[in-house]
């Protein structure tokens, strides 16, 4: 039951302690919010949570089978991330749950960021800015040469909402676009390669923006990076675990790949210290989605989806769970 006329509908908040959205107060005013981290907890938390049909999962808070067991009446989870790798998707599928994610809310910002990272790596923007601020320009007279961006071959791993926007942006730089994906997409003018290694061997800029699943963990491995080669660069705005980080660090340190722009890491906020000494590497603290515009968009989407669920209206940005079948 969505809730009778007196009680606003029940909404479970599933979040990590320091991860809050600005809409939490609004949600508390509109719905009966059940937050297990509330101190003191809601007086009827236990019985009410067993009847709740909707959960809002904010941030990469793991949604495990055990969590789902605690809320047996759940029908739908509204997520706030672009990815769903923090969900036990098998458990969700077994319970026939509906899941919504961020959809397109962040896609422009992440695509922008990917391009910004690529330009920074190839043209040494951050490194040259450090050079100037250190007062080195008058002393050294010349900064070293970077590498041209325009006209380079871009290989996109995952041509989804973010990947397609990355492609559109790089096309305006005269870059040729190729991609790899679980399936070739129809009516796409870009070259398809069956796997990441083939893509990398034909790319100068490899942009990683696909979903993290059991199948794509360490998709970018030593073979792929070797295929990319000494003058190729990697940009990762997906998930850290898409890349074999240990191998990446080794190859960067040895100069076996040309550089990297990384917004995500395997064990955030830990970043391998060996990278700090490299000028052909740009490091970012999982920042690609952090704009007021993206945050506003996800807030709006979440509010709309919660409202839609309780009014039996269609949901937006619903995740097709069967696409994650192996």
């Amino acid at each position: 039951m969505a809730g009778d006329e007196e009680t606003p509908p029940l909404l479970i908040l599933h979040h990590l302690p320091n991860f809050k959205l600005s809409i939490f107060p609004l949600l508390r005013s509109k719905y009966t919010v059940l937050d297990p981290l509330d101190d003191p907890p809601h007086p009827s938390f236990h019985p009410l949570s067993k009847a709740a049909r909707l959960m809002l999962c904010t941030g990469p808070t793991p949604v495990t089978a055990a969590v789902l067991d605690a809320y047996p009446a759940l029908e739908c989870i509204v997520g706030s991330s672009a990815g769903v790798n923090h969900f036990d998707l098998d458990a969700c599928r077994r319970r026939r749950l509906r899941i919504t994610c961020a959809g397109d809310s962040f896609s422009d910002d992440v695509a922008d960021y990917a391009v910004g990272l690529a330009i920074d790596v190839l043209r040494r923007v951050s490194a040259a800015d450090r050079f100037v601020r250190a007062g080195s320009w008058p002393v050294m007279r010349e900064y070293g040469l970077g590498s041209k961006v325009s006209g380079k071959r871009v290989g996109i791993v995952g041509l989804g909402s973010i990947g397609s926007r990355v492609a559109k942006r790089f096309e305006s730089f005269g870059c040729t676009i190729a991609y790899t994906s679980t399936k070739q997409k129809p009516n796409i003018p870009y070259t398809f390669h069956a796997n990441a290694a083939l893509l990398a061997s034909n790319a100068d800029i490899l942009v990683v923006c696909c979903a993290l699943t059991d199948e794509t963990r360490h998709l970018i491995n030593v073979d792929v990076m070797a295929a990319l080669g000494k003058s190729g660069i990697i940009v990762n705005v997906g998930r850290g675990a898409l890349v074999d980080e240990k191998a990446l660090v080794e190859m960067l340190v040895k100069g076996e790949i040309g550089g990297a722009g990384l917004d995500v890491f395997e064990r955030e906020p830990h970043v391998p210290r060996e990278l700090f000494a490299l000028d052909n590497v740009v490091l970012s603290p999982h920042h690609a989605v952090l704009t007021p515009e993206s945050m506003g968009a996800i807030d709006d989407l979440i509010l709309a989806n919660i409202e839609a669920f309780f009014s039996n209206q269609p949901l937006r940005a619903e995740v097709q769970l069967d696409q994650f079948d192996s």
Partner: protein
Amino acid sequence: MIATIWRRAAPHLSRPSHPRAALAILTSHTLTFSTTTQTPSPAAKMDAIGVLMMCPMNTYLEQELDRRFKLFRYWTQPKQAEFLSQQAESIRAVVGNATAGASADLIDALPRLEIVSCFSVGLDKVDLARCGEKGVRVTNTPDVLTDDVADLAIGLMLAVLRRICVCDKYVRSGAWKLGDFKLTTKFSGKRIGIIGLGRIGLAIAQRAEAFDCPISYHSRSKKATNYTYYSSVVELASNSDILVIACALTPETTRIVNREVIDALGPKGVLINIGRGPHVDEAELVAALVEGRLGGAGLDVFEKEPEVPEQLFGLENVVLLPHVGSGTEETRKAMADLVLGNLEAHFSSKPLLTPVV
């Protein structure tokens, strides 16, 4: 035509002015065409031509100039005025760039100067009027660097708005372990105002369009495009989130971005300069940034390079680059080849590749 044949067949001999005499010698047996004798190549012929390179600009260019011509390196001369008067008769070409070119004084000091070949597209360091008066040819390096400069303009916009350099510093300092970086403003969809819609300005516009940015511009004259035209820079700035300087530096465009324009751009506006330092009133710019009256700046050029106002070093909303607009291996090689190609064309009496004057 006889001159051309003579140059190839008997460059070591003085050609008689009368064509029939020249033809007679060419068809006689007094010229030996032994297979063991190398026909002098244009390159070998040119190594007596004095070329004055104004400052270090590119190793490959310097080496090639040294190999093909008689190269003089201006910056290594301890007494430059003396050097000029001593070598004046040998110098027939000057190679300059954004830092040092050919002033009226230099042109006057080199009576045998025939060509100034710039390792840049900008000509602000060359006295074009004096060159015109004296019949000195001038070439530059257009087109080959357009992409690089446009790429960097977009790179600067993204770096400033998304704080990419600051984020990198944040991670390297270990601060991420203490907390997430703050929100930064979205780039896609921002209104871009371009001063100067030439090759570089257009290339910037084309890229920004792929980010759904509305484009407007100011130029000396309206162009045949769909972009919105503003007849004044102040109006352009008032209607832009990001203002990019992409015009040539001339007396008219010096300090084209002044206090009024900066105020119009405002506390949320960002200035990107990939033109020349003197396009901007630098003191006003620094004050506006320090006082928060301007939202941010991405600067590749400065009034007195390599000096950069130190008050900018502590600002997070600024990205500072050491004039690297065309600074890629690919483009600098292409620029160098264009300089060399123009010089060789001139001294072979062929049409110049990229003449300006």
